[in-house]
């Protein structure tokens, strides 16, 4: 993303470039939100619902999301299923292979917290957020395909707050209203003075 980074830096340092940057952000975020391609990291039971979500009856392609097996071509990793200590390095590696900007959906209780495998087991990582920055959590054991579609729509809202400029991303992260946050309006108003969120 070096070229895009340079572009963002150049625009930020140019007077008036912020307007262009904001416009580019708007286009980029719109495009990213409507084209969230999935890296199906299905390991266990939830993988079945992940498959079901993109197949005939539920059809993810309606939302512009298609599963691609190659991490290099994807935007959002859907971790569906239990992650064990043996599997974790592979998940981490696949995450590292995905190009920025990338998001992560933890699908199912196992990926959220270890779920039913929280107690008494010696080989399960308790939640994929122990080693990946998770954006959306979906509860359920396993969640229904509709929940996953809902997660994609929520993620789309979250993507709208992204920017191609790293410093802007950092500036908005602290005040980012989470999707579905009841305090949404207030939080946005309470943004610090001078920040162009």
């Amino acid at each position, binding site marked *: *993303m*070096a*070229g*895009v980074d340079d572009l963002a830096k150049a625009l930020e340092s140019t007077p008036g470039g912020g307007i262009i940057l904001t416009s580019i952000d708007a*286009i*980029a975020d*719109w*495009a*990213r*939100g*409507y*084209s969230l391609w999935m890296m199906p990291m299905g390991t266990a039971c939830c993988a079945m619902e992940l498959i079901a979500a993109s*197949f*005939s009856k539920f*059809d993810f*392609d*309606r*939302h*512009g999301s*298609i599963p*691609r*097996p*190659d991490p*290099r*071509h994807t*935007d959002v990793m859907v971790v569906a299923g239990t992650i064990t200590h043996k599997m974790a390095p592979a998940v981490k590696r696949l995450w590292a*292979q995905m*190009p*920025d*900007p990338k998001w992560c959906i933890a699908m199912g209780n196992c990926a959220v917290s270890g779920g039913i495998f929280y107690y008494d087991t010696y080989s399960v990582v308790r939640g994929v957020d122990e080693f990946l920055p998770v954006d959306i959590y979906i509860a359920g054991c396993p969640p229904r395909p509709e929940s996953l579609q809902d997660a994609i729509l929520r993620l789309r809202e979250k993507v709208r707050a992204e920017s*191609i400029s790293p410093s802007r991303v950092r500036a908005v992260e602290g005040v980012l209203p989470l999707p579905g946050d009841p305090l949404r309006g207030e939080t946005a108003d309470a943004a610090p003075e001078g920040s162009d969120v």
Partner: protein
Amino acid sequence: MTFLWGLLWGLAAVMFIAGGAVIGVWWERKVAARIQMRLGPQQLGPAGVLQMIADVPKLLFKEDIVPDNADKPIFRYAPMAVFAPIAMSVAVIPFWAGWAPLDSTVGMVFYLAFPSIGVLGILLSAWSSHNTLATIGGMRAAAQMVSYEVPRSLAVLSVIVLAGSLQPTEVMDAWQWWWIPLTFVGFVVYFIASIAEMNRGPFDLPEAESELVAGYFSDYSGFRWAIFMMGEYGALISASLFGAAVFLGGYRWLPGVAGLAVFLVLAMVLITAVMWIKWTFPRLRQDQLMTFCWTVLTPLAIVQLVVAGVVALWL
């Protein structure tokens, strides 16, 4: 001045291929969805036609990953080496009576020669990725594309023999409706060999999703990968246009703009047929692929050439 014109034409060709690819990807997603009892893209624009308008900027703004162990300069420029020859091949397709973007006297040979240069780009990209799966994909692609070049060229040769010219516009002028039944076998051979040439199912071994994950472009991300996809769809469009022109008569069916419309519709039908085949058939294995090429397609093409030659003599 000539240089400027060339630049302009080049840009036009790239825009043509890119635009075609954008529509092609959408169309393929819809066709695949229809075959698979799904709906396909729906949210952006009527029937999701604007879906690709979202996909392209997204890929443009993605991180451009160059793996550490890759041969970096080659890795960076290999996608162009795949895309450029395909964009060039569009130049000799006769769109209009007596008019092709580049009306070369050796246009037919030019068309057959240029898309095959793409195999070089594929090999380069596969090898420079430093990835076993990509390398296997590249090797498969090389073997496949070089082999299928033979029946494809022989099939086109039968039309050249009938027309007695290597210039696409002259071939089109000489075209008669009864060439369709006469060269039907040749057309089928050309069609199948073209599918193999553009690495699409059931001959998509180089990028077989269930075996090699993504084959030779496994390590490409963002827009470089998009260029590969554009190359693939460009090859599909260009092969369909060429086949619709020299085998099916293209614009010759009706005069004027209506002829162009018929030509484009014929090409669209061919494109849809290719997608239909891809989403219906299983994939061949490498040895079966080669056997099919050398023991079925090539003899058929030779027989077609002989028949065409005899008819041409008798004319």
